[in-house]
C-alpha cells in the first residue's frame, strides 16, 4: 500500500511512518500544507493520513482539492480537535474516518485497513489469515470454512488482532479499542482476559496457536 502521511509534527509523523512501514507499506511524508497539496496532486496514494491543523493551511483544503480532482484516496483525518463540527465537515468532504489525538498506532492501523476494505476502492470484504477467514460484510468468522459464533466484542477483537498482526498489543490498547473512553472505568483488565480466553476457546487450537502472550501481560497475533 502507498500511504501519504500529512502531519507537521515531525516526531508523530516519523512514529506513524515506522509503524506502518513494518507491514511493508510504502510511506511518504508531507510536513506542511503546500507539500501535502502538491503530493496529492502529483501522485496517487491508497491512503492519506491527514492532520487538519497543518501549520500553513487547513487539511480540509487538501480534502477539497482531492474531491475536485476526483481522486480515489482513502482518507483518515487525525486531529487534535475533538469537536463534532470538524469531524462532520471532514467526513462531508469525503474523509473516510476521523481519529482524535492522541491515538494508538494500532488503532490508526486498524482504521486504515477498514478504510481500504470498504468496497469503494475495489477493496475486499474478506480477510484471510491462513485457515481463518472473516467476512466483514456479514461480520462472520470462519475457521477451516466452518463458521464460529462470536460475540460482538470477540469479533472486534479478532479483527483488531488480524489488522495488527505481528504487533504487541498491550491491554491498554485493546481496552481502548473495545470500549473507547469508557475503558478508564476498568479497575483491572480481567474483562479483556475473559474475552481473549473465550475467543481462543471458540477458535480451538487455531486460537491458542495464533494469539500469543507477549511480555507476560500483552498479546501478539502471529503465525508460528
Amino acid at each position, binding site marked *: 500500500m502507498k500511504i501519504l502521511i500529512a502531519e507537521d*509534527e515531525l*516526531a*508523530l509523523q516519523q*512514529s*506513524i511512518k*515506522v*509503524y506502518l512501514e*513494518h507491514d511493508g507499506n510504502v510511506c511518504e511524508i508531507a510536513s506542511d500544507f503546500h507539500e501535502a497539496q502538491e503530493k496529492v496532486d502529483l501522485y496517487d496514494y491508497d491512503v492519506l493520513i491527514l492532520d487538519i491543523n497543518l501549520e500553513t493551511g487547513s487539511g480540509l483544503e487538501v480534502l477539497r482539492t482531492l474531491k475536485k480532482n476526483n481522486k480515489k484516496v482513502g482518507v483518515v483525518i*487525525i486531529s*487534535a*480537535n*475533538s*469537536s*463534532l463540527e470538524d469531524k462532520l465537515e471532514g467526513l462531508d468532504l469525503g474523509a473516510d474516518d476521523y481519529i*482524535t*489525538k*492522541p*491515538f*494508538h*498506532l*494500532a488503532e490508526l492501523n486498524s482504521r486504515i485497513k477498514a478504510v481500504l476494505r470498504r468496497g469503494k476502492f475495489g477493496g475486499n470484504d474478506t480477510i484471510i489469515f491462513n485457515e481463518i477467514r472473516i467476512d466483514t460484510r456479514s461480520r462472520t468468522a470462519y475457521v477451516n470454512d466452518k463458521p464460529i459464533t462470536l460475540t460482538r*466484542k470477540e469479533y472486534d477483537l479478532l479483527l483488531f488482532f488480524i489488522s495488527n498482526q505481528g*504487533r*504487541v498489543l*498491550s*491491554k*491498554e*490498547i485493546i481496552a*481502548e479499542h473495545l*470500549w473507547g*473512553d*469508557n*475503558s*478508564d*472505568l*476498568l479497575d483491572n483488565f480481567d*474483562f479483556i482476559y475473559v474475552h481473549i480466553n473465550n475467543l481462543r476457546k471458540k477458535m480451538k487450537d487455531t486460537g491458542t496457536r495464533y494469539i500469543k502472550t*507477549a*511480555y*507476560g*501481560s*500483552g498479546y501478539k497475533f502471529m503465525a508460528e
Partner: protein
Amino acid sequence: MMNIILLVLTAIALFIYTRVLLDDETEEELYSQVAFYEQHIQKGNSPISISPIIDIKIVATKTPTVLKDTMMYDARQKEIELYREISRTIKSSDRYYQIKIRTLIIESEDIFIGIIISFISVLLIAFVILFFINKSRNEKLWAPFFTSLNKLKSFSLESREPIIFESSNIEEFNDLNNRLNALISKINTDYSNLKQFTEDVSHEAQTPLAIMQAKIENIINKSDISDIQYEEFTSIQKDVKRLTQLNKRLIILAKIDNDQFSKPKTIDLKQLITERVEDFEDISENSFQIDHNSKTTIKMDPYLAEVLINNLLTNAIKYSPSKSTIHIKVDGAMVQVANSGAKMISNPDRLFERFYKENSNKKATGLGLSIVSKICSYYGFTCSYRFNEIGKQHVFQIDFI
C-alpha cells in the same frame, strides 16, 4: 450634645424671663387695684371686703406699703394657694384704712411644665418634618449609587450581558462608576482569557500526548526490551490515557463556557439511557435497573446529553461496590441515578466542584460531576445529591425544568 445643652439653657432662660414678666405684671395689677380702692374709699364709699382677694379694715396707725407673698387657704379649691399681696394704709375721714389686695400667682412648676411641653412638641414636629425632607432628598441624591449597586448585584461572570454603569452628575458617584466599569471589563477580559487558555492548553497538549503514545507503541514492538521495561511502558500508556481523559474533560468545560454547544435537538431520554447502559453493562460488574414511568424528552445538544448521562453512570459505577445494582429512574422531567453506598459522602456541597474527589484512591479526574453541574447550569436544569438512609443509596437527581 451641644444641641441638648443649648436647648436646656434656652429653656432655663425662657423660664426666668417668663417668671420675671409675670411677677412684674402681677405687681402692676396689684398697684392699680389698690389705687382703685383708695379712690373708692376717698369718695366716702363704704369699703367692701371679698376674701381672700380684697380685705379692707380700719386700723389705728398708718403702716408703710408692703408687697409680699403669702399662703392662704382657698375654701373653694380646698387647698393652700400662693398669693401675692399688697398692703397699704390710707387715711380717709380721720380714719386709717388698711387695704390688702391679693392675687393668685402662677406657680413656677406650671410655667416649667408648660415650657417643657411646648419644647418637646416643637422638637417632635421639627424631627418629623426634617426626617421626611431628608429622606426624600437623600433618595434623590443616592439614586445613582443604588442603581450601580443593583447592577453590581446582578453581575455574573457566566452572563454574556455586559454591565455598563451610567455616568451620574455627582462627581464621586461618577468616579465610582468609572472605576467599576474599568474593573469589570478587566475581570471579564481575564476570565475569557482564562477560559481560552484552558482550551488552548488542552488542545496543545493533545499532540505531545499523541507523540508519547506513538513512541511507546513503537518501542514495545521492538523485540529487544525486557518484561520489566514493557511493564514500565504500559504503565506510561495508562498515565497518558489519564492525561488524555483530563484534557477531554477540560475541553468540554471550556467549550460550554465558550458557548460552543448551541445545536439543541429533541432527545428521547429513555432511549439514550438504554443505549448508554448497554455500553456500560459490557465492562461493569454492576447490574442496571431502569424504571421509566413516562416518555421523557429533553431539548439539548445531543453530545452534551450523552456526556451528561455518561458522567452520571460513570460516577455511579466508579463509586459503587462491585456486583451491586445501579438504579436509574426516569419520571416526568426528572432522572435519578442511585448507587449503593455505606454512608453519606462527607462534603456534599463540594461534590460538584472541579477536582473535588471524595475518595483519593480512585483514579478519577474529579471533573465528571462538575461537568454534570456545568451542563445543568448551562441549560437551567437542577442537579442535586442526597443520601437515602433507608436504602443506603447515593442518589443523584437532575430536574429538567
